[in-house]
C-alpha cells in the first residue's frame, strides 16, 4: 500500500528540537536537525536511533534539509553528520549556508569555553559538516536523484528561511519550518503556490497563538528606548543578525527624525565589517519595497546613526548602541555591558534568545549579580528588557498558508494531540482535510493513491477508433491491449506490437457455434434475412453484409450453410474471437430465437 510516513524525532513534548523524518515513496528525508536549548545533556539532541537501528545513516537517508539558521533547527547538525555519521547531501538556502556555521561556532565556543563541555563538536567538525551542504535557490527544483526532487519557498521569518516541498513522482510533502504570513520591515511574507501536496507539516504552537501586531512590538521598543534616553540613560542593544539590527535602526532613525531627538545612536564596528557580506545575501531575500530602500541608501548612511568607537562608551549623557555579539557572551557588547550595568538609568534590550552559559541568558533569568573573570562580581542595576522581534505565524496565518497550498492532509508537530481536539476540528472543518498530531517518536502513516502514468501507443488508439463508432465521452469503452512495464516505464500497446517486441508468435482463439434455423430458402437469402434482422436490432454495432454472403457484426463472422441432411434447415456458423465473447454469446442466443418472418 503506498504511503507517506512521518516521525518527529526526540524525546518529550517540548518545542525546541525540530527534527522530522519523512518517508515518501521509498525515499527517506530528514527535515531540520535542531538542538533543544534547555538541556545540557544528551536530551538536547534528537533521538537519531529512530532513523535506523542498524546500517549506516548515509545509506538510509537520501538527504537532509535545513529550513533556517536558528539553533533549534540546525544546532545538532555537526553532531549528526560528524559524530553520529552522515555523508549524504545537506540542502539549505544560501543565506542559511553562510550564517549557520557562524552561529554553530559561537554556540560551540560558549559550550566548550564557558560551560566546559567535553563531548561537543569541534570547529573542524563544523567545517566538515558544511562541506556537505548544497545551496538551493528559491523556486528552483533540485533533483536529489532520479526520483526525488525538492524545492524551496520563501518563508519570511528570518534571512534565508525557507519552506520545502519534497516530491517523488506524484506524491509530495511540504514542510514549513518557521514562517510568517505578515511582511515586516525587512522581510516579506511567506508564500507558496497551490501545489496541493499530500501532506503539509507545520508547528502546532502557531495554531494556538494569536499574535500581537508588529506595530505594537515596535512601539514597545521605541517607548523603552525613548524613556531611557529621556532620563539621560544609555541603551545597549546586543545584536547578531544584521537584518534585525537594520530593521531596528530604520525604526529608530524614523522615530528620531519625527520627534526631533538629539541623543546619538551608534552601530558597532563588528557589524559594519560583516555588513557588505550580509548585504549581498540580503538583497535577493527582501521584497520589492525594501530592496528599493536599500538601493536608495547605503547600509550605513543613516542621518542619526554613526559608527561606534570604544571611547564613546565612557561619554556622559544618553546614547543608543547596537553591538555584537548578540548574547553578551564576549567582545564589544559584553565590554559595554560591564561599563553600563551599574547605573539604573541605563537599559539593555535583548532582542532574541540567549544560550545557557552566556551573560545574556543569566540576566534574562533575572540574575542581578554576575560573577565575571577573576571572581569579580558585577551588580546589574540597569534595566533589563527581553523583546521578541522574531516573526512567527499564528492561528490566522496557518489557516492562510493551508488555504494557499491546499494540502490533502495537515500534520502538526510539537503538540499534545489529547489537548488539541478543537484545533484539529478547526482545521479539518475549514479545509476538509485530515489533521494529524503525532507525539515525538510516534509515526504517522498516511495512505496515498499515487497516479501512475501509462503511455498508450498511437497505433492502438487509432485502431480502436477505426473499428467502430466513435467513442462516447460519457461511456467507458473496453479496450484490449498489453501493458509493458520496463525500466519504471509503463506502456499500453496492441497485442501484436507486444508480441513483436517480445519476439513471440501470436495465437488466436476462436469460438464457433452452430445455430439451426428453419428456413427453406437458399443460404444466400438466409444470410440476407440474418443481415437485415441484426442490422435492425443491433443499432449500436457495425453490421455488414460481405460480398461472399457472410455477415459480420464487428469482428464476429456469421455464415449461412445448408444443413447436410435437411434442406429445410439452415445452419448458421457463428464464429468469434475470445475478446468478443460477450457479444458472441449474445448474438448466438439472439439468433437462436429465430428470424422474423419476411414480409
Amino acid at each position, binding site marked *: 500500500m503506498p504511503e507517506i510516513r512521518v516521525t518527529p524525532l526526540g524525546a518529550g513534548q517540548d518545542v525546541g528540537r525540530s527534527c522530522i523524518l519523512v518517508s515518501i515513496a521509498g525515499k527517506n528525508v530528514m527535515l531540520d536537525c535542531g538542538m533543544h536549548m534547555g538541556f545540557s545533556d544528551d536530551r538536547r539532541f534528537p533521538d537519531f536511533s529512530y532513523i535506523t537501528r542498524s546500517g549506516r545513516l548515509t545509506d538510509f537517508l537520501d538527504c537532509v534539509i535545513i529550513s533556517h539558521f536558528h539553533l533549534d533547527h540546525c544546532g545538532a547538525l555537526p553532531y549528526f553528520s560528524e559524530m553520529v555519521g552522515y555523508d549524504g547531501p545537506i540542502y539549505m538556502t544560501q543565506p542559511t549556508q553562510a550564517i549557520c556555521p557562524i552561529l554553530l561556532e559561537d554556540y560551540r565556543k560558549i559550550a566548550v569555553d564557558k560551560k566546559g563541555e567535553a563531548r561537543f563538536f569541534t570547529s573542524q567538525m563544523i567545517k566538515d559538516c558544511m562541506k556537505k551542504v548544497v545551496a538551493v535557490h528559491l523556486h528552483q527544483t533540485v533533483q536529489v536523484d532520479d526520483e526525488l526532487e525538492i524545492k524551496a519557498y520563501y518563508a519570511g521569518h528570518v534571512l534565508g528561511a525557507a519552506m520545502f516541498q519534497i516530491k517523488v513522482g506524484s506524491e509530495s510533502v511540504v514542510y514549513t519550518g518557521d514562517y510568517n504570513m505578515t511582511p515586516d520591515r525587512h522581510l516579506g511574507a511567506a508564500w507558496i503556490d497551490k501545489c496541493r501536496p499530500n501532506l503539509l507539516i507545520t508547528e502546532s504552537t502557531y495554531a494556538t497563538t*494569536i499574535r500581537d501586531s508588529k506595530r505594537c512590538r515596535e512601539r514597545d521598543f521605541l517607548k523603552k528606548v525613548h524613556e531611557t534616553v529621556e532620563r539621560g540613560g544609555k541603551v545597549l542593544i546586543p545584536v547578531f543578525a544584521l537584518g534585525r539590527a537594520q530593521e531596528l535602526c530604520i525604526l529608530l532613525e*524614523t522615530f528620531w527624525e519625527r520627534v526631533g531627538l538629539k541623543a546619538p545612536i551608534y552601530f558597532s564596528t563588528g557589524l559594519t565589517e560583516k555588513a557588505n557580506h550580509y548585504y549581498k545575501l540580503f538583497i535577493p531575500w527582501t521584497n520589492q519595497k525594501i530592496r528599493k530602500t536599500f538601493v536608495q541608501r547605503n547600509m550605513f548612511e543613516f542621518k542619526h546613526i554613526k559608527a561606534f568607537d570604544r571611547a564613546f562608551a565612557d561619554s556622559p549623557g544618553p546614547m543608543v548602541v547596537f553591538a555584537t555579539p548578540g548574547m553578551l557572551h564576549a567582545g564589544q557588547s559584553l565590554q559595554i555591558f560591564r561599563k553600563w550595568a551599574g547605573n539604573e538609568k541605563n537599559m539593555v534590550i535583548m532582542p532574541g534568545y540567549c544560550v545557557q552559559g552566556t551573560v545574556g541568558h543569566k540576566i534574562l533569568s533575572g540574575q542581578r549579580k554576575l560573577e565575571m573573570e577573576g571572581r569579580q562580581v558585577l551588580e546589574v542595576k540597569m534595566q533589563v528588557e527581553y523583546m521578541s522581534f522574531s516573526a512567527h505565524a499564528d492561528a490566522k496565518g496557518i489557516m492562510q498558508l493551508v488555504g494557499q497550498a491546499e494540502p490533502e492532509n495537515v500534520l502538526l508537530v510539537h503538540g499534545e494531540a489529547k489537548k488539541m481536539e478543537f*484545533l484539529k476540528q478547526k482545521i479539518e472543518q475549514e479545509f476538509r482535510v485530515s489533521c494529524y498530531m503525532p507525539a515525538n517518536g510516534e509515526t504517522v502513516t498516511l495512505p496515498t493513491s499515487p497516479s501512475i502514468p501509462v503511455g498508450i501507443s498511437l497505433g492502438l488508439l487509432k485502431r480502436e477508433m477505426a473499428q467502430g463508432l466513435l467513442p462516447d465521452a460519457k461511456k467507458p469503452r473496453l479496450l484490449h491491449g498489453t501493458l509493458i512495464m520496463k525500466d519504471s516505464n509503463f506502456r499500453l500497446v496492441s497485442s501484436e506490437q507486444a508480441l513483436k517486441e517480445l519476439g513471440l508468435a501470436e495465437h488466436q482463439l476462436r469460438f464457433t457455434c452452430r445455430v439451426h434455423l428453419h428456413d427453406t430458402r437458399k443460404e444466400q437469402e438466409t444470410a440476407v434475412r440474418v443481415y437485415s434482422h441484426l442490422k435492425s436490432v443491433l443499432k449500436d454495432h457495425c453490421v455488414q453484409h460481405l460480398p461472399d454472403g457472410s455477415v459480420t457484426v464487428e469482428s464476429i463472422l456469421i455464415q449461412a450453410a445448408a444443413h447436410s441432411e435437411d434442406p429445410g434447415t439452415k445452419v448458421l456458423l457463428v464464429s468469434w474471437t475470445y475478446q468478443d465473447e460477450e457479444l458472441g454469446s449474445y448474438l448466438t442466443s439472439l439468433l437462436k430465437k429465430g428470424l422474423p418472418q419476411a414480409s
Partner: protein
Amino acid sequence: MEPSEDWLVESLRLYQDFHAFDLSGATRVLEWIGDKGILVSGYENLKKNEILHLILPLRLSVKENQGLFPERDFKVRHGGFSDRSVFDLKYVPDTRLLVTSGLPGCYLQVWQVAEDSDVIKAVSTIDVHEKEGHLWPRVAIFSSAAPGVLHGTRLSSLKVVDLESQKTTYSSGVSDDELLSSLQVLDTDTFAFCCTSGRLGLVDTRQKWTPSENLRPSSGSTGGRWCAEAGRGPGPSIASLGSDGQLCLLDPRDLCQPVSLVQCPVSTPSPDPELLRVTWAPGLDNCLAISGFDGTVQVYDVMSWDGIGRQVEPLFTHKGHIFLDGNGMDTAPLVTTHTWHPCKPRTLLSAASDASLHVWDWVDLHAV
C-alpha cells in the same frame, strides 16, 4: 508618515502598554474567566462561529520584572463551535460552564470547558419560550452552590432558571412587555434591569415584583435606546447611557432623581444602539467607560458631575481601532464591546467590528 504611524508615535505618550490582535472573527463578547483569561465569540450569520478561551500574555499578568517576559501573544486555551451568532456570553463562576444567547432560535446554550483537552462543548439548552424570533434574551448569572440563570427579552419574560434542574425559581410575573437591554446580578438576591426605553429598576427576587425604579427619562432625552450598568460603592453608582449620547447617573437609593445627566461628545445617533456599553472601572474611583458610537472607547471621571445638561469631556479616548484599521475597509470599524481588567486599574480590553482586539493601559495625563 501615514496617520497610523503618527498615531503610534502619539501613543507612546498616551499608553503605558498597548497590544493589538486580530481575531479570526469579530466578537461582541469579552467575558473574564478569573483575571488571566477571557472568552470571545463570533456573531456572524449562517456560519460556524468560534467561541475561544484566550489566556492573556504573561507580561500582563505578572506583577514584577515585566521586562523579562517577551511574550506578547494570546494563547488559545480552549475553543468550541457555535452554529448560531452569539450576542451574549456569561461565565458561571466556580464551574466550568458558560451560557450563551444568540440567534436564530430562542434558547440559551450551556457549554462546558473541558479540563483535559482544549474543547468547549455544548452540553444542554435552556428553553426561553420566546415567540418573537428576532429577539434574543439578555443573560446574567446568580452564582451560588446552585447557580441560576437570569434571562429575558421583555420584563414580562424575566425568569431565573436553576442551571442544573432547569426549574424556574423566579418569574417576574408581570405583563409589562417593555424590551430589555441589559440585566445585571448585584448579589445573591437582587438584580438590576434596564429597558431599551431607559426605564431601569432594582429587583429583590425574594419578593413579588416591586422593583425600585426610575421614572422614564423625560427632560433632555429624545428617546433613543438605553443601557445601564450598576457599579459598587456609595453615591451615584448606576450609569445609564442613551444612543443619543446622554449619560445619566443615578443613586440606587433614589432612582427617581437622577444625580446628573450629561451630554457626551460622541457622534450620534449610534449606528447600532444594541452595541452601546457603559462600564464602571473596578480599580478606579468614579471612573467609567463608554463605547458603541464609533470606533472609540471613552473614559470619564464622573467625580464632579452634577446637574442636568452639562457638556463633558472624556478623561481619555482610545482611538486605536480607527488608526490601526489594517483591513483598509471602507467602513470605519465600530467598537462592539469593551471591558476593564479586574486587577490592573487602567487597563481595558476593547473589540471592534473588524475583528480587532486591543489591550491598552492608558496614561492619566491629568494626574499630577
